């Protein structure tokens, strides 16, 4: 009969604390500096001259702002591995390992006492710093201090989670350094796998050249996910003049997420206990101590590194000579398989700590792996899971956007559906499209981008290289495949709605500028603007509106904001002779309707938050010799008086830059 053993051993606990307390002390000092000391220094000057005082900030607002800027998961991920590593140090040294396990104490006691002492050293500083921060905040006059404790909760759960991951990492190996490396690998494993797939896709798959953009951190990468999804959000609203705070609100978000992470951490700690229970102590100093992880590590490393490496090799070859889509894939597959075999045996050498790993058994395993890798790469080529052909379902799309020379974002359901159809038709012809670099190496082109913002927060990005549809050598099939895109975006209605903006037909024109080119000195010039100072604001607006209406006629006639797939160099001189160097811009304004910025939405400048309400936008247009309505109106309304001040880019270059065409 074996005796019952407890989960806790006080002698070990004291011994663990005696080795890690210094880390806890340093952590506490750091937290003190970050929390109360920094807060007190920041709020020390809150007299009448202080900006915060002038803006009407209360001490509570300042406290929330201060706490919302404090790191959470980042602290946990660093402290957890340091403290846990020191506590379980004995697992990585033969002498310590053997002796510790010869003492009259069970693994259960050693394990759970180790966890408890690690968490004590990691969490007590957070608790103490929070208490001191609370006292400091109350002393400074902050009314509500709950944000401090929510911050402490986030840090505590993060620390618990990272401690569990740290222990898992340490249990899988017999080398401390490898354990630390595994810790960071496990923490970023999902992200690294996603990056590997995206990198490969960006190098090999049609339309996925921008696949490295738009990575949305997932729950499996907690150090990046927690700060975004579990936080204190303070909303401070200012008056129209941005001179006074008029409203303050705050919210603690991510409670259920933290609960989920805490449960996961507890489960992982129990799993790790089982690993420890069955851990063979002779695996000290082994690269991998858990048998079932060895093949996972070997195959995983071989597959991901060789996949990315193969894609890179194909990309490098393509940089030297144009390749067909299939040619590029063939090079990538062969390279991946060769690299995979090399890495497979390299990982075996690491695991078994010997160079003698070449045997029949390993060769068979490697052969099976190579066949599996080949299968996956071929599936990738055949787009079995439909990555290349993916067009999201209508009900999943929040908005759809396209960027060629200008940016358009569609939020209306009918527009999105029309756009989806256009995209699907485009992809149906991809055989005509994806070999353009090989078929038309001398035809200039560009890349256009399609983005879908999905309702689940993901962003789907596709980049398609295209060439000028007007080039004489391009096939009619190619033109048929791409022209519908141009027709779609060059529709005058869409230009007005998306390039000028949603208030294009319901707006005041609050400013308008046309730059006339005036010789200044020999070889130099100045841009002259008529500001119409003699007019009242109303008169100016009427004047601007008249020009604007004529400008819209040019838009309707297809004379301005037209986009094409030609590159910068295509018919460069002709373009220069047609477009004006003179600048032209105007501001559209509607006090009742928010201006919807297609560009800001497309590039997600708000970083996922709600857009700040805008009521106006300045539009810049490149006028050309076809814009007769606008030019005439500008002249009639007095923006310029004689034709000498108007110059095409060609004329300007000739006169001021001595450009030789």
């Amino acid at each position, binding site marked *: 009969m074996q005796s019952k053993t407890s989960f806790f051993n006080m002698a070990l606990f004291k011994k663990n604390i005696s080795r890690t307390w210094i880390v806890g002390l340093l952590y506490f000092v750091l937290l003190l500096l970050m929390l109360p000391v920094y807060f007190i220094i920041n709020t020390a000057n809150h007299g009448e001259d202080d900006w915060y005082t002038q803006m009407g900030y209360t001490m509570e607002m300042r406290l929330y702002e201060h706490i919302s800027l404090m790191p959470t998961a980042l602290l946990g991920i660093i402290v957890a591995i340091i403290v846990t590593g020191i506590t379980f140090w004995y697992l990585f040294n033969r*002498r310590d390992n053997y002796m510790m396990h*010869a003492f*009259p104490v069970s693994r259960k006691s050693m394990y759970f006492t180790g966890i408890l002492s690690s968490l004590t050293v990691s969490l007590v500083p957070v608790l103490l710093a929070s208490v001191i921060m609370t006292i400091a905040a109350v002393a400074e006059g902050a009314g509500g201090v709950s944000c401090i404790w929510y911050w402490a909760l986030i840090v505590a759960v993060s620390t618990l989670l990272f401690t569990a991951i740290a222990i898992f990492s340490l249990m899988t190996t017999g080398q401390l350094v490898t354990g630390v490396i595994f810790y960071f690998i496990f923490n970023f494993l999902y992200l690294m796998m996603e990056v590997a797939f995206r990198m490969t896709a960006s190098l090999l798959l049609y339309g996925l050249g921008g696949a490295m953009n738009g990575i949305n951190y997932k729950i499996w990468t907690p150090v990046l996910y927690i700060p975004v999804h579990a936080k204190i959000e303070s909303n401070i609203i200012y008056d129209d003049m941005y001179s006074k705070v008029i409203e303050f609100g705050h919210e603690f978000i991510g409670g259920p997420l933290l609960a989920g992470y805490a449960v996961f951490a507890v489960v992982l700690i129990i799993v790790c206990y089982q690993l420890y229970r069955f851990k063979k102590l002779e695996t000290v100093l082994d690269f991998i101590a858990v048998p079932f992880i060895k093949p996972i590590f070997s195959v995983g490393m071989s597959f991901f590194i060789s996949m990315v490496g193969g894609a890179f090799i194909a990309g490098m070859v393509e940089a030297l000579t144009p390749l067909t889509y299939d040619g590029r894939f063939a090079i990538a597959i062969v390279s991946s398989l060769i690299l995979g075999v090399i890495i497979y045996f390299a990982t075996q050498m690491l695991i078994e700590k010997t160079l003698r790993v070449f045997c029949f058994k390993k060769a068979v395993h490697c052969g099976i792996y190579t066949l599996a890798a080949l299968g996956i790469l071929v599936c990738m080529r055949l787009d079995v899971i439909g990555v290349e052909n993916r067009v999201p379902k209508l009900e999943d799309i929040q908005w759809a956007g396209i960027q060629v020379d200008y940016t358009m974002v569609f939020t209306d359901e009918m527009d999105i559906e029309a756009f989806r159809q256009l995209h699907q038709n485009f992809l149906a012809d991809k055989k005509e499209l994806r070999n353009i670099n090989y078929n038309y190496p001398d035809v200039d082109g560009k890349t256009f981008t399609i983005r879908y913002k999905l309702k689940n927060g993901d962003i789907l990005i596709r980049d398609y290289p295209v060439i000028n549809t007007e080039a004489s050598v391009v096939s009619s099939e190619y033109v048929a495949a791409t022209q519908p895109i141009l027709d779609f975006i060059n529709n005058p209605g869409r230009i007005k709605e998306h390039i000028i903006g949603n208030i294009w037909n319901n707006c005041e024109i609050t400013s308008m500028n046309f730059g006339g080119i005036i010789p200044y000195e020999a070889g130099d010039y100045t841009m002259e603007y008529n500001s119409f100072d003699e007019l009242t604001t109303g008169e100016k607006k009427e004047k601007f509106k008249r020009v604007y209406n004529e400008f819209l006629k040019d838009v309707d006639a297809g004379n301005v904001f037209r986009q094409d797939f030609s590159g910068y160099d295509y018919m460069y001189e002709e373009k220069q002779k047609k477009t004006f160097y003179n600048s032209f811009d105007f501001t559209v304004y509607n006090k009742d309707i928010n201006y919807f910025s297609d560009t800001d939405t497309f590039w997600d400048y708000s970083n996922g938050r709600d857009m700040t309400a805008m009521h106006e936008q300045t539009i810049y247009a490149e006028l050309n010799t076809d814009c007769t309505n606008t030019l005439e109106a500008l002249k009639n309304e007095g923006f310029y008086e004689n034709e000498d001040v108007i110059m095409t880019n060609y004329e300007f270059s000739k006169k001021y830059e001595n450009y030789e065409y």
Partner: protein
Amino acid sequence: MIQVNNVTKRFGDFVALDDLNMHVEKGAIYGLVGPNGAGKSTIIRHICGVYKQDAGEVLIDGQPVYENQAIKGKYAVIPDDIFFFTQANTLDMMKFYKDMYPKFDEALFKKILNCFPAINPKKMVRTLSKGMQKQVAFMLSIAARPELMILDEPVDGLDPVMRRQIWSLIMSDVAENGLTVLVSSHNLRELEDVCDHVGIMNNGKILIERSLDELQTSITKIQIAFDGDMPKLPDEIQVLKKITNGRVHTLIVKGEPRAAEQAISQMNPLLMDVLPLTLEEIFIYELGGENYAVKDIIF
């Protein structure tokens, strides 16, 4: 006290312990000897509950050792490479052992400490010399009042005076408290002085396990000289080794020495001396049958 029954342990493809059997009686001082790589440290780690066997069983007082906290409290271990916590001094280690071992005798510890005046108990143990660290390990282990003491190369690194002092401490504990000792060592002459039982290991197996007396009487060295050539020996005499030097023949004979002595005396030798073998010689002759490479070195 210790029963190791059919224990097998593999490290990958290497068989470290091969269906090993070993038995240590309560109160015995059991010397475990064997060449390097025989598996001595491996079996000791099984007996300490550090390793888990692939097959067989390791029992102390009839109970499995592995993960058995109560059984582990009954023995103390001094490994070849001694463990102390970083930053810990002798008194810190004493406190740790006191918390770990239920029968730890602090008074005894202080008494023993007085016997080793060179050791400063407030100095970090890891800064002490290797010999002093061994002394501290012995003090701690003896003060833990174990029923079994497991020693792996215990006096390696100690000077002769200190060795004697340490062994005398252990022997008095054996005499007074019935302590059982399992000791592994390469120093066979030293084991010969202290052990009453011996197990000889090679290739992961116990080749011989007997009391030292029995072992020493099972192999005999007989020196004989005849007038002329040596006559043929009777078949019942099993000669492990025969060395001839002029007319003097040295025989290593396995079996009951008196029977061999009587049989040879009937052959009327000019000279006959029966000499006991040292443990070291027994070790070498026994392992000689196991293709142990050094068998001819001493001749």
